[in-house]
């Protein structure tokens, strides 16, 4: 079996991550799928269609986790993911490559305010599924109708669906109706206090935050890899996470080998913005970073990080991260690996010795060009005529 992998797509300021387990189960965390009409945008959709599994020709993701509803975390959901009754998935849907979300993870709290079409689509699809479960529809447990409620309720009451719920402090090891032995997720947030939070950044502070935990064998005591995902969560959230996790003696849930820097390497993880007015990082945020393990890496899923006014990404935030993990272990999706001007995803494989870059792929002595070649798709002029 192939090793589990974690892939961070280069999507500018935004998040799109793909976790692939040894049994090929796939988990997509957020999406920011932009149009690929310029030459320097990585084609996330194409890669997803190559990475996901198919059932009767239908591409599907086992679990979609939307950390929160900001545009840069759900862009393209409406266009690229299938919404509606799974049995109505049509041949033309197949042609368009609409991805079926077998199980969606849905936080009622993040869906309070509607700000964009993609979020609306996510919310609408979640409500469609919830009503199937509520009415005990016989099709409710089919792939494409499954749903998991994360955290607490907002204005709508889903108490009758508590069996579908996972709360902060819970460890989830069942994904898309299958139990996993080597993989689990520890849920940190959103918690109740978020309900009372106010202000413009409410959506950000109510992000789902979780720790993805990988093992290589069922009998190993420690984890092979720990990856932290936190959407756009800010320093106050992390302060509460730290406090609660320690209180319930769950320190293991704070450790990490991979830390997806919240809010695209924003200063908000370290302190309030603007950074100039709050230049000192909070101790709690620094303490979170101290739970890193050997050779841990911080991923900045953002634009190229420059020392300028255009924030996030904050140059100062990067400096704080680099202080903790060294420059070599701070990886920016836009600059990590560029091929033909196009940034490539950051990928790590899970081995029993921790994360490691994937193997280089061998070529062969025989070769033929494909239809996608630039040469093929542009005119080539020859001849000795005058210019």
């Amino acid at each position, binding site marked *: 079996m192939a090793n589990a992998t974690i892939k961070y797509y280069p999507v500018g300021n935004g998040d799109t991550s793909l976790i692939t387990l040894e049994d090929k189960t796939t988990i997509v965390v957020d999406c920011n799928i932009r149009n690929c009409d310029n030459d320097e945008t990585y084609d996330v959709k194409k890669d997803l269609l190559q990475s996901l599994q198919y059932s009767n020709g239908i591409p599907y993701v086992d679990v979609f986790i939307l950390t929160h509803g900001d545009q840069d975390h759900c862009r393209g959901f409406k266009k690229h993911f299938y919404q509606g009754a799974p049995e109505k998935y049509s041949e033309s849907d197949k042609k368009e490559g609409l991805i079926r979300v077998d199980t969606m993870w849905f936080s009622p709290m993040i869906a309070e305010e509607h700000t964009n079409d993609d979020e609306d689509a996510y919310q609408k699809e979640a409500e469609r599924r919830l009503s199937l479960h509520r009415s005990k529809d016989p099709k409710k447990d089919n792939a494409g109708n499954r749903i998991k409620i994360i955290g607490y309720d907002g204005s709508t009451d889903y108490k009758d669906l508590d069996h579908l719920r996972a709360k902060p402090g819970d460890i989830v090891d069942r994904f898309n109706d299958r139990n996993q032995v080597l993989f689990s997720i520890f849920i940190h947030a959103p918690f109740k206090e978020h309900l009372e939070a106010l202000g413009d950044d409410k959506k950000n502070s109510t992000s789902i935050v979780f720790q993805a935990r990988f093992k290589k064998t069922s009998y190993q005591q420690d984890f092979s890899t720990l990856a932290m995902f936190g959407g756009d969560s800010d320093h106050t959230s992390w302060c509460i996470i730290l406090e609660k996790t320690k209180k319930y003696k769950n320190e293991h849930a704070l450790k990490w*080998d991979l830390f997806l820097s919240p809010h695209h390497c924003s200063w908000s993880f370290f302190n309030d913005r603007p950074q100039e007015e709050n230049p000192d990082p909070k101790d709690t945020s620094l303490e979170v970073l101290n739970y890193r393990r*050997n050779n*841990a890496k911080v991923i900045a899923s953002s634009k190229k990080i420059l020392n300028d006014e255009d924030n996030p990404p904050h140059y100062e935030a990067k400096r704080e991260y680099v202080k903790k993990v060294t420059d070599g272990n701070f990886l920016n999706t836009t600059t990590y690996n560029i091929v033909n001007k196009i940034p490539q995803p950051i990928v790590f494989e899970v*081995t029993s*010795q*921790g994360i490691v870059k994937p*193997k280089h792929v061998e*070529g062969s*002595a*025989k070769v033929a060009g494909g239809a996608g070649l630039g040469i093929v798709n542009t005119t080539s002029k020859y001849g000795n005529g005058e210019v």
Partner: protein
Amino acid sequence: MEKFSDSLPLFTNDIENPEIQDSLKSLCQLQGDQVKILDWGNSRIAIPIEINIDLPSLGNFDDLDIREKEPVIFVFDLINYPVSAPRVYTDRLDFPKNNLAHLYVAVNNRPPAFCYVRGNADEWYANKRIEDLVIRISNWLRDGATGELTENGEQYEPLRLEGYSGSIIYDYDTLLTVVANKAAFEFGDKFSIVLFERPSNLGRYTYKFVRPITDKNALTTIKEVDEERKKDKEDVTRKKYYYGYVLWSEEDVIRREYEVNIPRSWDEFKLFCEYYHIKYKEFEKFITTYSKINEYIYFPVIIGIRRPSQLIGYSSNVEFINLRFKVTSSDIEQEKIVNNVPIDMLSHNQPLTKKLAGHISGLDKISDSKRNVIFGCGAIGSKMIMHLARSGQTNLTLIDPDYISPHNLVRHTLFGEDVGHNKAEALAEKIEKIYPYENTKIISGTSFKDGLIGQKETFEKYDWVLDFTASEAFFNRLSTLRNIDNNHVVSASISDFGNLGIMYKEGNNRNPRLDDLQVYLFSLAENDLNIRNWLKNEQASAHSNLTVHVGVGCNSETTVLSDHKISSHASYFSGVLQKEMSMMSAEGKIYLNRIIDSKDYRIETQVFNVKPFDMFQAVNNTNWEIRFKQGIVEQLTKEFTIAGKNETGGVFVGVCNYKTKTIHITGSIKAPLDSKGSTTQFVRGQNGLANEISAIEKSSGGQIGYVGEWHTHPDGPNCLSKQDMESVKKHKEECSNLQPPLPVFLSIITPTGIFPYVF
């Protein structure tokens, strides 16, 4: 850091091999610098380079000292590159070689080489470039660092050795019983003796396991070996026996390290034994005291060492190191080996087992627990039998009365040495030699004993009954045999001058039966041009117009047919048979393998599914059976209903077989337009009937034609009327004068059913 390459001299000659020049250029590009070209000796150059490795975040597996940059040496064969792939060695003298699998054992004081492909490196490299090899070595080292080098994580990778001087064949599990269960006599503490044989002087040195020496067989074995030694050396029956020695370590001495220095001399051997806590002194005393026990100066020695976990591909943690000693009388003084005698390595080969053969064939699912019987071990039969046997299915009974003649060798799997031998017996002997250490359960004979074939219990122990006799007589016999109702029956043969292979597979409960399938195939000629042409060819070449050559009798030296055509059919039939054996289909099947021997030689296949036939016994003579192709009875019933109170009728086409007392109905022709039916009478007309029958007859090459008639009795009775009997009498007059005569077959259809009569 001290590197091995520092000890190599610069290569000063010109490199003429353009492929090497090319690859060196690529290496320079990869390294971003010029590379050093050193002399490896033996017409090889050594290129030291540095490989980058991505190491895992939490530290290397077992804290192995693998670094982000590893120096290695690429060694190119100046003459044979790139057909001969580069060898790659570590360039670090302190490389953690003892802790890594997939390294070759070091020789000649050189560092160990990476075993970077599972199979043959030259084959792998045939489709790779030097850049790919660099990637592969980097991935190899990455795997070493992550602990993924052994693909089966829980198990221990056995040593990779090279530079063998010969091979030794024994079953690992059998030898393991000597070590683990004391299955042999211990001549010393953890020291036993096993008898080996060298099958021939040809090829490379090979020792084959015969048996371990136990206290029960010691005397007879010694006697047996002595007797062979007494024989004249030129005697072809003389067997060359060797006593081989097995030494092993204590159970609690477990070594994890890959000992990459296998002893190459007596002195090294002693150190090796001490390291693994193996007591060699009793062994030394034995071979020096009884130095004459072995006739030859070379003899095998097997050392069993214990690994921390089960070895990949084997059943325990004991790894056997196979050595060959060379000891002459001048090496021995006073129960001691006084010279530093040389030691070679032998490669171990597992003898082939049926299970392994099935596994290698990808046919593990097919069970060998029930016996199959095969009639006919000729050209087709012998090839199909070998296909079965080579895939581990040897639970067979082979029957053939014939003996191998020289001309048989053109198309038979057997060889010249078998001329004069019974085909079935010779095949069985060959198959037993494939699995020398197993009971193949194969049985062979010239025939079943008299009468046995018809007895009820004969076939009870069999699953499949396979007919490759190419005998029409046997085909008829098998078709009507009553005691194989619970067996699966297949018959395969060749027709159309060797170009058409036909295989019939009966349906569940023998319906459709072999002869049903044959008739069905003939009936397809009406609509299938290929079948029509084949049957017409057969008719044109036949002397009597009702004999189809269902098989080409290979007994005739004049039969012109190449071995490759037989093989083509046999391989198709075998493929079909293996499929059916692993998952039997319920319906009858006809498989055709057609060779089109025209300008472009082509092969195409066709499969027909055949539904069960409807069966009736003749009302007046129960010896005769009437078998209808599916659909005909329904058609008759429909016509009966449409005609209502009026009688109606028609004509049957098919074939009648006196040998099997069967009339096969393949079609029914509706009453011609000039027929007249009333409530009491049916006059079957004739307009166009002759043309219609002639067309059917022609298309089937005379295999199918008129066989009888039917009419209805809407109000009964269920028997023939007086009028009917008169027609029968009239028909009988004509039919009995035919050559061959045709029985008169008349069926009546009444509200209660179909009532066939045969006169």
